[in-house]
């Protein structure tokens, strides 16, 4: 081994990555070359230096706990998505390979759903209330097994009835299914939460929010889905509607946090202004000391004059 070869190999030697014959050749060369011996020592000192300032073997325990908890929530959301919903409703044999099962269902359902999707949405609402043009109508009391046997592929409509407060959901499947019932029904709520959190069509998500404003927002699962939509939905209109649907009637720390986040960070100015309006509205009926730091930050730092003025007014109202 010569000096150039040793230069290439010295780091690998220190890490124990050389073959036995390569190690022997390096050691033999080092024994007779002062310059390379110094290089080897330097390499070892570098390794020691790096180890000296290495993080401990275990990450901070609190960080690990936080990461695990955050991952659990994220995985729960993944499971709330359409894949898990389908997996829950598919027959067991298909559940073993839901992707393949869904491909088959999609192809079969395409013929059924295409004609329906081409109808105007208003017409779809009228026909849904009459139910005459719907292929199948299922009561809201249908079980998960019933839904599973229907082989759900997509949702084409969420229509609240302004008179009764009930909601009508049209699911596309091998046989089209329409669920109808009140927001008290857990199956109805489950599908609506799925539509709100996972469904691609923002129009469906907006219809879902309109329906929830009629009274489903108090349910904790629905409330969490609304706050999720407020923070994460890609469509500003949906986020704004989520904020309005949550409302200020059942105020708690989660809502406070969600509204403050929206006021501070939403990329859409309309949503931010609506959030600060809701915060001010809540404060006018009852002060909330926990909001003070966030409002102070908005009052001094926000780029929008309206938001700053509203935040200042809210703080004055609380005597800050």
């Amino acid at each position, binding site marked *: 081994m010569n000096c150039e070869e040793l230069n290439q190999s010295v780091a690998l030697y220190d890490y124990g990555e050389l073959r036995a014959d390569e190690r022997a050749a390096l050691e033999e060369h080092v024994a007779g070359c002062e310059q390379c011996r110094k290089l080897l020592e330097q390499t070892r000192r570098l390794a020691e230096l790096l180890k000296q300032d290495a*993080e401990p073997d275990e990450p901070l325990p609190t960080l690990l706990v936080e*990461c695990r908890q*955050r*991952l659990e929530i994220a995985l729960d959301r*993944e499971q709330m998505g359409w894949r898990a919903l389908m997996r829950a409703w598919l027959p067991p044999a298909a559940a*073993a390979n839901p992707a393949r099962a869904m491909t088959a269902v999609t192809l079969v359902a395409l013929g059924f759903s295409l004609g329906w999707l081409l109808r105007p949405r208003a017409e779809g609402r009228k026909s849904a209330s009459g139910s005459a043009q719907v292929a199948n109508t299922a009561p809201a009391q249908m079980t998960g097994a019933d839904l599973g046997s229907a082989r759900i592929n997509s949702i084409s409509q969420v229509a609240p009835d302004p008179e009764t407060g009930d909601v009508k959901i049209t699911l596309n499947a091998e046989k089209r299914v329409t669920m109808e019932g009140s927001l008290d029904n857990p199956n109805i709520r489950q599908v609506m939460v799925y539509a709100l959190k996972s469904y691609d069509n923002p129009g469906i998500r907006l219809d879902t929010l309109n329906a929830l404003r009629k009274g489903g927002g108090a349910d904790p699962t629905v409330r969490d889905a609304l706050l999720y939509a407020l923070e994460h939905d890609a469509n500003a209109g949906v986020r704004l509607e989520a904020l309005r649907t949550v409302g200020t009637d059942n105020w708690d720390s989660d809502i406070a946090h969600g509204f403050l986040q929206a006021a501070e960070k939403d990329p859409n100015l309309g949503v931010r202004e609506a959030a600060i309006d809701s915060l001010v509205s809540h404060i006018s009926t009852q002060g909330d000391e926990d909001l003070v730091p966030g409002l102070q930050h908005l009052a001094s730092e926000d780029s929008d004059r309206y938001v700053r003025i509203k935040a200042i007014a809210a703080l004055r109202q609380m005597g800050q």
Partner: protein
Amino acid sequence: MDGACLELAGKIPAEGSPGAGAEETVLIRQAQAGDRSAFDALVRQYDQGVLRLVLRVAGTADEASDLFQEVFLKVYRSLSHFRFESRFSTWLYRVVTNVCLDYLRRKKTRREVQPPAPEEGQPEYFHTLADDRASLDPERALRSKEIATRLRGALNRLSPRERVVFELRHYQGMKLRAIGQMCGTSEETAKNCLFRATQKLRSELGDLI
């Protein structure tokens, strides 16, 4: 996951060790079939090692947490594609490597890399450690802090691939052959990467050694 219970998992099982074995294969198959508790158990075997690595790469707890989520969500979503053609640890760390490489590349193109600034009220992780160990000796504490800053700067100036290979070899103790598989390259390429990384570090930190 029970946050109150921290199991001290070891590092990734060395190649050829029976650590992975039949038990892990069962867990993987159950997780692929949709068993969430099986997936959680699988994660528990590796999450500490992954967090150690992403914390070193990212430098702050918040960014490490984001990378941690990204890794395991990708693993969750793509687990059905794991065909037992390699060790699960190799496949997992390929995901980790790609996430780290993407992060480092984004960081480099966004701005000139600086040591991450601590959040208000939260000491920067890298410095906290040095202070804890040298807490009785202010001069040593200051020197440790200086070394840590120089070290972090030198590591940040490696290319993304050099950085990841170096982290995996030096701090995670993985063999270069495994690193090559994780990076989707050969052992020889991993060796060359490590060589360049150590050359650069030696050049930058020469006055400290």
